[in-house]
């Protein structure tokens, strides 16, 4: 299960970057009444953390090349190769994200123009996730060539995006509190953001666990022998891993659910926020990485 590790890291990190960027955008949209100063103060550190994440993912992807120094050649076949298109859009997303972060940091351009740049970046990111799903929709691999590949990648994008942003917000707040730099307005924004993140994650989990059984059912009833072998791999050979990944993702989102219930009764301490955001993220990240390793392990081609 380990030989595609560079691609596991690349796809998971790229999707988490896109998700985080989009989720930060959603926080800005939903919190349009919050004073811009407070909003930027809360969300900027999270924004600046996305860049290194994406660069790490892109760097990991070159590790699986036989001749990494020629990586630029991967852009030569945009006419027909989804892999070429994926790399191009990946670089575009990284470039736009970097440009936006820089403008946001130096407060360049008008807020309106920066908003436009952010929306363009977010849309490019969502297109990137679609292109990654097309790369794996090979007509010779029945277990990958389904609508579920896109569902799977988008659910990873949003789930990890929500939770990574949650951690970033809480960590930033924690550091500021320790410095004696408390801001009640910012704290309120973070708690309401976490509430939204919890609700959003539960929704994505719902999509995931409606999609999965119908996908596995599709493999079982497929006319292709290769699809049956893929099913045997994820349900039989690696059945334990499949179960583990399901439990981890469920447990991560359950932590958020408990937090929501607590929050409806009384205020939650800063320490508790840290535990909630941190453990939810770690559990779901572990589950998603195992899930992605299983995705690669399920690759069985038609023919010989």
């Amino acid at each position: 299960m380990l030989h595609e590790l560079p691609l596991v890291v690349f796809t998971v990190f790229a999707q988490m970057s896109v998700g985080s960027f989009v989720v930060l955008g959603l926080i800005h949209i939903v919190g349009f009444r919050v004073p811009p100063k407070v909003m930027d103060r809360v969300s900027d550190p999270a924004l600046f953390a996305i860049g290194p994440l994406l660069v790490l993912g892109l760097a990991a992807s070159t590790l699986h090349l036989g001749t990494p120094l020629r990586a630029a050649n991967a852009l030569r076949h945009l006419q027909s190769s989804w892999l070429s298109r994926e790399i191009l859009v990946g670089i575009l997303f990284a470039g736009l994200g970097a440009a936006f972060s820089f403008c946001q940091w130096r407060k360049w351009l008008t807020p309106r123009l920066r908003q436009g740049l952010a929306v363009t970046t977010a849309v490019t990111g969502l297109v990137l996730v679609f292109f990654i799903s097309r790369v794996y929709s090979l007509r010779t691999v029945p277990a990958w060539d389904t609508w579920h590949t896109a569902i799977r990648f988008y659910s990873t994008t949003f789930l990890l995006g929500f939770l990574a942003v949650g951690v970033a917000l809480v960590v930033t707040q924690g550091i500021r509190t320790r410095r004696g730099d408390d801001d009640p307005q910012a704290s309120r924004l973070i708690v309401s953001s976490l509430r939204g993140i919890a609700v959003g994650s539960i929704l994505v989990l719902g999509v995931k666990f409606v999609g999965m059984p119908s996908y596995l059912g599709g493999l079982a009833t497929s006319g292709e022998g290769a699809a049956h072998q893929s099913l045997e791999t994820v349900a039989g050979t690696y059945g334990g891993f499949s179960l583990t990944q399901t439990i981890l993702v469920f447990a991560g989102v359950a932590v958020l659910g408990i937090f929501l219930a607590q929050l409806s009764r009384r205020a939650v301490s800063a320490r508790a926020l840290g535990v909630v955001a941190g453990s939810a993220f770690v559990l779901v990240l572990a589950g998603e990485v195992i899930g992605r390793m299983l995705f690669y392990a399920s690759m069985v081609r038609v023919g010989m």
Partner: protein
Amino acid sequence: MPTFKQIGFYVDQSNCTGCKACQIACKDKHDNPVGVSWRRVAEYTGGSNETDTADGSFRTNVFTYYTSMACNHCADPICVEVCPSTAMHKGENGIVSVDPDICIGCRYCEMACPYSAPQFDAAKGVMTKCDFCADFLAEGRDPACVASCPSRVLDYGEIDDLRAKYGTESGIEPLPDPSITRPNLVITPHRDAQGSGHGTGAVANPEEI
């Protein structure tokens, strides 16, 4: 030097003994390392021994047949389609080959090809595959695999001529449905051959493929 609009292979499965001389001749000609075999021979096996409950006698319907397979230089080559670098290309005589100076070794063609034709050479860091012995063809010689076959079950030539002479069959297990990549291949099926997608057996030597 003979030229072709589209060159193709012919395999007479009904007379193949599975000796793998073609595989070794290919490996020798191209000096390929262990783990890189441009031509491979799949052994497809199935059936079982059964007891007839009426009279207690044994019946057997076991079968095995061999399919010698390199690259089919497809009319719709999925390796060329998915290659991000354009290293994989369809060139002279309709031969699909890799440009080793462009290939980045991403192995995406290896994932896609349903005949396992493109193979990664770890020492070179790039993909390699059957080039139809283009250098031999240029000298007017037969490809190494065809020349080596003691049973004379391999042939090659202009695909239209091969089809006129031997028919149009190419969808035999364990090969994929030919509509996927439109291989330039003609097979004379073994008497026990099963059509692609309707197989009841399995490849008995997967480690060699």
